[in-house]
């Protein structure tokens, strides 16, 4: 990133003179705030329309000849299938309550990042093409004709929304701009307009089973490598089952958890926990991805990728599914999976084999969040925890958008944290729980070329972290999301370099007292625990 934090903080919130209805994006001048288009090979692999080489800076985006018709028909089709879209198109009163709730607006000052205007980019075309008033009065009724420039603007701003749903919390009609962004992305997709950071993971996941394109033998290698590290720290040898038929529980995590720092420490935490309680579980090399980048492309791709979970649970003959710490994964599991790929009538209602708790809130999907599972274990006193092994960490918790606003998973991770760490501090209340601020890099925007926008979008989150850092000395930001673990370190380095990032189950793994372990002198990262050195 060339711009310094001080430069980035010169944010102009006064809107420009130019009427927003005139579309105009100078992609050349705005490098650093958009993502590269999907590579043709990925579109071809997935069977998506109009694969081609192109760049947003090109004058001609090589749209299909009848592009206008395609968008019109596509729009009509979406309106017929989604009541949400119709209601959200018709009901906005432009009260502006959502305007300054979006992290991208707060961080950039660009008025089209106000959720209401982001939605208006689509709504204006809707009014023009599909409403009585718009058809007769055109611009006077807020209608806007669809032109190639409008398409370019859609690309820019609908890939500048992380589908975090914060705006929806404040809207008097619950208008969810994330839903509108999803629809707009579906429309753009019909023209072959998407970004590579979304279509490549989707293509990978379709083929290998995970976003990172990790093939089964490497999957196994990675996990074995992590287990060696674990043995160094704890003295316990673990050999996690993979593709084991007849296990009680299928455990699915986001792929970053077995691939990259700091997610791997979270993964280690899961493994230690299961070892200690003797859970009969299996990982799967086929369903080796919890996350679902299909969510950032289209409803059909959500379903395509998600299908693996139930299919694998059925093939392996498990009783229920346990899911790891991942944000958008839980949006899909909680709000889409059962509807799309259920009913999961071949599974049983999840029941903790340790405490006997029946998770009846997951009676239909048969899938439980690891934080629900662990919180229940702690509540029943089934874990011996030594928070002093997390000494030195002053912890705060970042609610990831989806677990918070799609699931309502607010207290479980906090309950766990309070039991496994010594010092826990909350960020200000307007920045956590249902009002939490996005990391700024979700929904496929966490790529390098989009770095300036990521740092801008992450500003409100970073600002809140800085607050607790200065006030209480917080030095670690915990979260339950793999995208967070991948992108928050960069965000922290930029805005609050003294703060590091960890998953909740990393903290659990540190604190968990295990049978037969050696005295722990380091944490899962291999760093000495203060007060226990040597």
């Amino acid at each position: 990133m060339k711009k310094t934090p001080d430069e980035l903080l010169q944010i102009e919130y006064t809107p420009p003179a130019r009427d927003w209805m005139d579309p105009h994006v100078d992609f050349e001048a705005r490098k650093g705030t958009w993502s590269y288009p999907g590579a043709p090979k990925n579109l071809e692999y997935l069977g998506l329309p109009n694969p081609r080489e192109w760049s947003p800076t090109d004058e001609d985006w090589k749209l299909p000849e009848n592009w206008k018709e395609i968008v019109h028909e596509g729009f009509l089709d979406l309106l017929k299938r989604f009541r949400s879209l119709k209601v959200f198109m018709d009901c906005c009163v432009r009260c502006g309550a959502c305007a300054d709730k979006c992290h991208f607006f707060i961080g950039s000052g660009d008025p089209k990042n106000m959720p209401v205007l982001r939605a208006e980019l689509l709504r204006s075309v809707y009014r023009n093409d599909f409403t009585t008033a718009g058809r007769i009065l055109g611009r006077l009724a807020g209608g806007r004709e669809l032109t190639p420039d409008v398409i370019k603007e859609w690309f820019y701003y609908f890939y500048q929304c992380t589908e975090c749903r914060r705006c929806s919390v404040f809207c008097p009609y619950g208008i969810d701009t994330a839903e509108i962004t999803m629809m707009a992305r579906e429309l753009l997709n019909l023209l072959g307009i998407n970004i590579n950071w979304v279509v490549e993971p989707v293509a990978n996941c379709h083929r290998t089973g995970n976003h990172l394109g990790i093939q089964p033998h490497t999957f196994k290698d990675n996990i074995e490598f992590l287990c060696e590290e674990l043995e160094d720290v704890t003295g316990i040898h673990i050999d996690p089952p993979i593709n084991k038929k007849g296990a009680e529980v299928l455990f699915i995590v986001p792929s970053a958890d077995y691939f990259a720092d700091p997610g791997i420490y979270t993964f280690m935490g899961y493994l230690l926990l299961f070892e200690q309680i003797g859970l009969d579980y299996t990982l799967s090399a086929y369903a080796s991805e919890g996350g679902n980048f299909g969510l950032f492309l289209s409803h059909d791709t959500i379903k395509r990728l998600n299908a693996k979970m139930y299919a694998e649970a059925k093939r392996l003959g498990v009783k229920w599914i346990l899911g790891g710490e991942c944000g958008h994964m839980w949006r899909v599991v909680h709000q889409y999976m059962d509807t799309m790929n259920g009913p999961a009538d071949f599974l049983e209602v999840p029941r903790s084999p340790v405490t006997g708790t029946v998770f009846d809130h997951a009676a239909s999907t048969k899938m439980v969040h690891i934080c629900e599972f662990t919180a229940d274990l702690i509540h029943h006193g089934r874990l011996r925890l030594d928070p002093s092994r997390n000494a030195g960490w002053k912890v705060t918790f970042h609610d990831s958008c989806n677990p918070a606003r799609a699931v309502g998973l607010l207290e479980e991770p906090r309950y766990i944290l309070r039991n496994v760490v010594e010092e826990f501090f909350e960020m200000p209340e307007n920045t956590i729980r249902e009002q939490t601020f996005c990391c700024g890099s979700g929904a496929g925007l966490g790529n390098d070329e989009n770095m300036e926008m990521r740092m801008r979008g992450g500003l409100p989150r970073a600002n809140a972290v800085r607050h607790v850092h200065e006030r209480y000395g917080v030095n670690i930001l915990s979260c339950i999301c793999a995208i967070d673990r991948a992108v928050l370190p960069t965000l922290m380095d930029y805005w609050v370099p003294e703060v590091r990032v960890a998953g909740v189950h990393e903290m659990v793994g540190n604190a968990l007292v295990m049978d037969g372990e050696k005295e722990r002198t380091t944490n899962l990262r291999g760093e000495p625990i203060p007060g226990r050195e040597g």
Partner: protein
Amino acid sequence: MKAFKALVIVGVLAGVATVAAGVPAFRPVLGIWLPYAAAALFLAGMVRRVVCWGRSPVPFRIPTVCGQQRSLPFLPHQPLESPYTGWQAAARVAGEVLLFRSLFRNTRTELTRKKRLAYLPSKLLWAAALAFHASLAVIVFRHLRFFLEPVPSCVRFVERMDGLFQVLVPAVMVTDAVILLALLYLLGRRLLDLRLRYLSLPADYVPLFLLLGIVGTGIAMRYIWKVDLIAVKELAVGLATFHPAVPDGTGALFLVHLALVSVLFAYFPFSKLVHMGGVFLSPTRNLANNSRARRHVNPWNRPVDVHTYEEWEEEFRDKLVACGLLPEEE
């Protein structure tokens, strides 16, 4: 500029009505045909709108959750923010409709000079919106006295309550004052807040000006240029009982008032005012957050192309065998 366009539109409408009200031949148009046409448009338009919404299914259960889910018994569930049953979801919607709970959450984000973000409470919009809608409801209810003979006691009761703060003679209706102030505030913020002005459309000003015109003429009739209430009542009852007539004593000001009300009703279903119905149908608010407990069915659940285990195994067979995830044979 956009506000000006809207002002011109409403101004022209009011002007035309004023002129027409003075021409005997046009009085039945203003007093009879326009109200009937507006009522018809309103009803047909709203029915069409709601039916149109209803025709599209709700394929997924996508509530925006604003509180702790119902999961483990020792974690306190927040039923209004994360409803688990249909009743709880209905209560959540009721909170939106009656109290504007989401709007109550509103904050104002500010970047301070020290480059820190601050989220300041900002309840004025909520207060003004609630004041406007509540006053409007009371005023509409009060107007029943023109249509019903004898005037039901509940209508008279509300009217008496409304006029309770009797400081002037005749009684100043609280709601008259409140709605006027609320409308002026809503208009003022649209004009003065640069961001809001930037995103506002002419269609955002039209209803405000119309309402101001309606409220203005209404207040003028009550307190300044009093009109013959007996004639007004005769006209209203006539309309309601489908024996319409415009009595001779009907004031021109009243006809203008009626014309503006008619325009508002006719305009309603084709504008953002349909939020009146939409607020009940918003899937992020009216659904229970229980999608893991109870399966939500999508009527068009589209078949998609998936990568099956068998295809996957075939593609990676060599590697699976080499790393021991598949037995050697075959």
